[in-house]
């Protein structure tokens, strides 16, 4: 049952909402509306000439086979990153939640990578796995693996997925750990007394009680893979080889910044925005039902 408060003054609730609304309008609705407007324009890179072209940018976009391919790439990339970063983080969190010596040190070490900027994380992984010079690529080659992310699209995808997952695990770990620590010990102990083994206790007690955290992280992670990973992709593969790691957000960047095609790039951001809004809505509509608060 939700609590409701009754305000006597009609103006007060709006006044209290005002700062929040200003922030949302200035930092979200205003840029978003700009992107929508720009997607109907054709501009040169310097913004000297600007012409209203209606839906021409969208037509050109949906006529590109590469665009559909970037959608597929995005689907593969985001499901891999979201699944892996959530499950690995959950595994680590459950381990760190046990009574360990130096648990504090483990936890700190786990949280550290979150402080690394995406581009730096990208460069780090790029160097470790650079085919001929990377300190991890050489042993790989020594073992007979023909490691070559410069040409092999599967290798390139593995590399960007690893870098993106590594970057996100800390964040997920932090929330999972907090979630785990808020589960009352008594419930778990009761389960143990009733004869439930550790696996059973985890799946029937801990995991359901953790579901609000998991749901929150799912939403955040989807937004992360859709919007925040382009720095990593830019640094590691530049969208290559042969466009195999060009996700939708990287294409927005490539067409807008490298190509100077601001209208086409804006049209792509609008499409991307619609997709993410739809995904979030679906998550709230269907997945949230399974969440037990």
């Amino acid at each position, binding site marked *: 049952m939700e609590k409701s408060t009754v305000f006597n003054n009609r103006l007060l609730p709006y006044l209290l909402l005002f700062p929040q609304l200003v922030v949302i309008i200035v930092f979200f609705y205003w840029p978003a509306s700009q992107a929508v407007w720009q997607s109907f324009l*054709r*501009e*040169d*890179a*310097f*913004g*000297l*000439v600007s012409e209203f072209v209606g839906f021409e940018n969208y037509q*050109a976009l949906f006529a590109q086979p*590469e665009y559909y391919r970037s959608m597929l790439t995005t689907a593969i990339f985001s499901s891999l990153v979201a699944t892996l970063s959530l499950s690995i983080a959950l595994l680590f969190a459950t381990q760190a939640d046990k009574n360990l010596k130096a648990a504090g040190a483990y936890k700190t070490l786990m949280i550290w990578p979150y402080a690394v900027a995406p581009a730096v994380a990208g460069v780090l992984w790029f160097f470790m796995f*650079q085919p*001929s*010079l990377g300190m991890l690529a050489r042993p790989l*080659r020594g073992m007979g693996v023909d490691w070559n992310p*410069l*040409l*092999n*699209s599967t290798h390139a995808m593995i590399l960007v997925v690893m870098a993106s997952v590594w970057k996100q695990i800390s964040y997920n770990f932090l929330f999972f750990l907090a979630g785990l620590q808020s589960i009352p010990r008594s419930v778990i102990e009761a389960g143990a007394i009733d004869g439930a083994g550790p696996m059973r206790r985890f799946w029937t007690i801990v995991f359901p009680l953790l579901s609000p955290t998991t749901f929150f992280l799912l939403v955040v992670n989807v937004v992360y893979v859709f919007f925040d990973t382009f720095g990593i992709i830019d640094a590691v593969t*530049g*969208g*290559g*080889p*042969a*466009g195999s790691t060009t996700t939708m957000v990287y294409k927005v960047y*490539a*067409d807008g*910044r*490298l*190509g*100077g*095609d601001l209208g*086409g790039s804006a049209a792509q951001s609008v499409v991307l925005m619609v997709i993410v809004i739809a995904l979030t809505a679906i998550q709230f509509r269907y997945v949230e039902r399974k969440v037990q608060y």
Partner: protein
Amino acid sequence: MAIRQFGVATALTVALGLATPAHAVTEIQWWHAMTGGNNDIVNRLAEEFNASQPDYKVVPSYKGSYPDTMNAGIAAFRAGNAPHIMQVFEVGTATMMSATGAIKPVYQLMKDAGEPFDPNAYLPTITGYYSTSKGEMLSFPFNSSSMVMWINKDELKKAGVAEIPKTWPEVFDAARKLKAAGHDTCGFSNAWASWAHIEQFSAWHNLPIGSKANGLDGFDTELKFNSPIHVKHLQNLVDLQKDKTYSYGGRGSANEARFASGECAIFLTSSGYYATAKSTAKFDFTSALMPYYPDAPGAPQNSIIGGASLWVMGGKKPEEYKGVAKFFAFLSDTGRQAKLHQESGYLPITKAAYEKTKADGFYAKNPIPETPLKGLTNKPPTENSRGLRFGNMVQMRDLWAEEIEAALDGKKTAKEALDAAVARGNAMLRTFEKTAK
């Protein structure tokens, strides 16, 4: 706390204010993309210029890679605070040229400032790239380079390759021998995939990259680099890639380190790699002209330039433009140009600097900096080898590389890949044509 900081800040400001000379110094912002040894050269040039006169101060700032620098400049222009001088790589030329109003043409700048300026003093193979069809110089060539083939002489000797290979079949043979001699991960390689295998390759074989003299004569140009010779070359690379006789080196220059590390003994990249090679390669190396196919009519033709030029941004004060003009005159000085050329491996931009370097007997002792000049002046340029000017070229290069990668990875045949590169490139050119009108 806040008040105390304010106090310190005020004191500092006053102190600095007192330290400043009585007359105002006009600052000139110079955004560039030079790293390593070349970054030091940029800073030294600025220092020397600032020390040479009291009125102007050139302030160089490193803004990232070539595309980053260009984007930073464009974004700054849109926000109303562009730098005075912006270094733009040669593929950004069409974009800058079409931005009338955003830029101040160099010939105009020099005329307005009354600085001595003779367009004929500069090497035409270089300035042709940055001039209108009427010969008006739009930007100031700074670091020009061309593509050469870097050779690890020690390793070639070990592998039993007596002569430096001249043709592509000879390169393939040498690479096979190198591979047999232990270079099992790389027979030969290159940096800048599109620049090497499409742009330079076409000019060197007197084949058009696109119609309208590779776009120099108009934005309504169409790409043409899917000819049988182009297809044959890419097919050869695809075949050799399978057993690492050829090892793809990526779109940029990151892989140049594989030459210095000794892994790849034959490596095609910019002549501007000289400064880095000198300091990192621990073996006897040299540079040679790019290889060619002997059965291609007219090959080798001449190579084309790469590198970057300095663009002057529009909407600045006349006083500031005067400083920029003085700086360009300073850069054109023969002694300075000759020295820059000899140290960096970039080309001298004036005829006098080239002559001086020759007359000093520099090339007899150091043949490497002359290789790109030999390539550029191998034959009088044709429609196919004067240069190139395509809109959206920054991104188009990536697109071409994408298709080369698709062929090398076996996803497409060489013919399919080049056809796709041409078709997708043409679509981009048409978009650019609409905005550049």
